[in-house]
């Protein structure tokens, strides 16, 4: 998966708890993205980063925050998890441009009970 590691791979948590997902890359790529994948919705962009400390919102950003303090790490935080945030979360990276070829991680299956 092109030097992208997502952790954890699976997580079960309770409604109302904060959750942080981590994406780590070894490719030194500038752009990093967080998507969620849900049946019937395909992939939807949550947040993305175009450099260290440079982030912006995607189409489904409510309830999520991100941070990027180093090129290699992009963290996604669910501030107070809800059942509607049960999903598979994918991190992706791109080095050539923000709408160019993406490399995806293996995903994190998150269940909020």
């Amino acid at each position, binding site marked *: 998966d092109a030097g992208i590691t997502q952790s954890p791979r699976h997580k079960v948590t309770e409604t109302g708890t904060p959750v942080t997902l981590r994406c780590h890359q070894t490719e030194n790529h500038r752009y990093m993205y967080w998507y969620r994948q849900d049946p019937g919705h*395909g*992939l*939807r962009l949550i947040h*993305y980063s*175009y450099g260290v400390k440079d982030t912006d919102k995607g189409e489904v950003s409510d309830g999520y925050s991100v941070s990027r303090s180093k090129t290699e790490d992009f963290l996604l935080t669910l501030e107070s998890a809800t059942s509607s945030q049960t999903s598979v979360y*994918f991190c992706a990276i791109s080095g050539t441009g923000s*709408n160019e*070829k*993406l490399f*995806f991680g293996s995903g994190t299956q998150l269940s909020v009970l």
Partner: protein
Amino acid sequence: SQQGEEDPQALSIQEGENATMNCSYKTSINNLQWYRQNSGRGLVHLILIRSNEREKHSGRLRVTLDTSKKSSSLLITASRAADTASYFCATGGYTGANSKLTFGKGITLSVRP
């Protein structure tokens, strides 16, 4: 909102047959990409075609782009059981330096041995 819409939603063919999948979009694009996702895995980039290109080949894959009709097709020739996967089109726009890819909901392809 999703830019690309794939058609059909599901396709089942016999090994050795060709598989054709279509993608339509609504606004002007810089490029269109196709990705594959095997069950439980992240997406893998297959091919990228730019708005000034009409056709592109990669191995058994052939992609066409018709910007006048705002549509693309992905042809997989001589399909194999290993081609069984979900296929997504993604469109890249012109909305500035940090434009993002927008994914469709995907097509499920089943190739019967």
